[in-house]
């Protein structure tokens, strides 16, 4: 039973890896609007220590008004 479960888990991982990396250079064709907004907030933090609206190191980023979570933005500062 354990081996069977391991095989199923392995198959799921292989399928997942295939779809994650298949034509990775071609798809997606561009950054999404969220990704560019996150990138600009990171850029703003790096340049000024403030977010896009001049708020210093916020907990949630107003960004384009949809209030993004901070983890991705702060993580990109590394």
């Amino acid at each position, binding site marked *: 039973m354990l081996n069977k479960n391991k095989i199923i888990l392995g198959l799921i991982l292989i399928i997942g890896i295939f779809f994650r990396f298949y034509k990775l250079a071609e798809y*997606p*064709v*561009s*950054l*999404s*609007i969220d990704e*560019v*907004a996150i*990138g*600009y907030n990171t*850029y*703003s933090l790096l*340049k*000024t220590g*403030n977010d*896009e*609206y*001049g708020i210093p190191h916020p*907990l*949630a980023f*107003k*960004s*384009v*008004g*949809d*209030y*993004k*979570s901070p983890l991705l933005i702060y993580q990109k500062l590394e």
Partner: protein
Amino acid sequence: MRYFNPRLYFSSGDGNFLNGLTNFGPLLLIFILPFFRGLKNLFINKRELFNYLAFLIVFAIIPAVFTYPFPALSKSIFIIFPIVFVIAYGMDKLNRKILIGFVLLLIINVSVVLYDAVNKEPYRDLEQRMYSYRDLAREVTLHKDSYNKVFITNSYGSDPSPSLLFYMNINPASYHRNETKPLVYRNYINQFDNIIIDQKEKWILDRNYLYIITPDELESNPLFYGIDYKIKSRIVDLSGKEIYLFIEYLPKTNVK
């Protein structure tokens, strides 16, 4: 307790422009079956797992509490873990016949998504638009300093400004100074530096202005009826179709 609103499970993402479907939310709808099965089993048989589940729920709440006033659903992302936990537990307890039926339905569900991805929608509409915005930003960077104002239509897509800010490396400090109006959910940035987005009531003809419009607008916007102009640049989308024209007004040849 509003945080535990069941609507989270059924929330959907951006609409799919090509086929009218919305995204499938945080989890596929079909997982609702093992979810309820797992929930029932947790209450009846495995109360000791409640501690583990309670830990996951508390863990999920912490970021949501810190960002509670904000409307984005991404603050609730960690609630996915306890939901997946319950689904997995429920799946383990499904009897064989139901499990086979469930897997068949799951394959159909995933097939529909794959069919859309591979055949109906090789490029997501949003991705194609963002690709075009990157090209737009490159061309605007080349031309913007040669003109007093650059007017950009929003007829191709409603909000090119985040891409322009990002790809053009607009100085955040100067942008902070310009942005003074109060924020509402999903605001649209309509001006920075000498770039004005939409606001067509402000558009007037001047040879020191650059107009970035769609080919349709060149025909339909009364501002451009019968004028002499020069096309400074063109932006095409992934299929090669023209989507933006960079128009410079030529008043001298218009004088009689």
